[in-house]
């Protein structure tokens, strides 16, 4: 139970504790909807759940960042996202404009905070 990567090597570890535990969810999704129609109410609900989870991933990435992002203050991350969203709507729902403005605001904010 207390085996570590040192004992089995990085490639076997990649398969056993990286690939397999991740892929199991995709395979379950494949098996679960065998023969189901896309107009079925179950699929409509499942898609709503997937969309909500995607929003959860976004909230997690911005509010509970990890790695190099975590070093930048929370208000810079939230403010930059707001600037990006404003630019998105100002540029008639342009994804490129929104992403560019959001990342630009993030860099500026982080730089001004001394990063």
């Amino acid at each position, binding site marked *: 139970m207390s085996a*570590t*990567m040192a004992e*089995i090597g*990085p490639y076997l*570890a*990649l*398969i*056993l*504790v*990286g*690939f*397999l*535990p*991740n*892929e199991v*969810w*995709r395979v*379950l*999704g*494949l098996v679960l*909807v065998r023969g*189901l129609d*896309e107009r079925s109410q179950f*699929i*409509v*609900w499942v*898609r*709503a*759940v*997937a*969309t*909500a*989870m*995607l*929003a*959860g*991933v*976004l*909230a*997690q*990435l911005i509010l509970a*960042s990890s*790695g*190099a*992002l975590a*070093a930048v203050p929370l208000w810079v991350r939230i403010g*930059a*996202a707001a600037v*990006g969203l404003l630019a*998105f709507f100002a540029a008639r*729902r342009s*994804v490129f404009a*929104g*992403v560019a403005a*959001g*990342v630009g605001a*993030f*860099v500026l904010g*982080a730089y001004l905070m001394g*990063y």
Partner: protein
Amino acid sequence: MSEPSAESPPKSAAKAFADGLRSAFGSVFFYVLLGNYLGIGALAHEFNFSVLWMVLSTILIWAAPAQLILISTLGTSTLIEVAIAVTLSSVRFLPMVAGLLPTLRAEGTRQRDLVLPMHFTAISVWVEGLRLAGLLPRAERVAFYNGLGTGLMFSAAVASAGGYYLAATLPPLLAAALLFFTPMAVLMVSARNSRTLLDGLSFGLGLVVWPAVAAMKLGLELMWTGLIAGTIAYVVHRVREGVR
């Protein structure tokens, strides 16, 4: 020999695949994945993995959060702990794959034809593919989605190796900025794709419910966020449909 169709003449699978590839290069996610995976490749270098290992992890796992967990914890945690953390981080793929495959399936599509689209499903390919493939004739959708997935995964794999070699030269501010591309792209593309009440409500509620669930420290935050926000949005959608 293909059956003559009543609709427009069906394109060959190769043509649909090429269309998918082209859509990948035109997608904002192609560039976002480049940025994001440059950051992850640099992290793999910091933690002393090989460049081949890093590229393989992108192709096999194809999920940035799971890869970040793997890279940062494999050296110090037990294998069981890492496996549990990766499992918990990837629950979203179940509803994503389940919600997608019925749209890709055409008459005569075998279960094994769906294995590749299943593996390509990640946030980037899913949000672009669900929207674009739905506009195509059914017979072309699987090949199109595979082309889209190949193009986007190619971008990530190249950046994985690139970031690995650039690691030593990346200033911290740039490393942070690269990782900020992904949340921004998810936000903008979701805002663009939220055309229906159900989509917009699911996404908006998800943004509000995640911090609430996270504050309660129940664990499995993403799963609860999906079930709670998705179900509320679905119920509102059904009530509105019933009223009309």
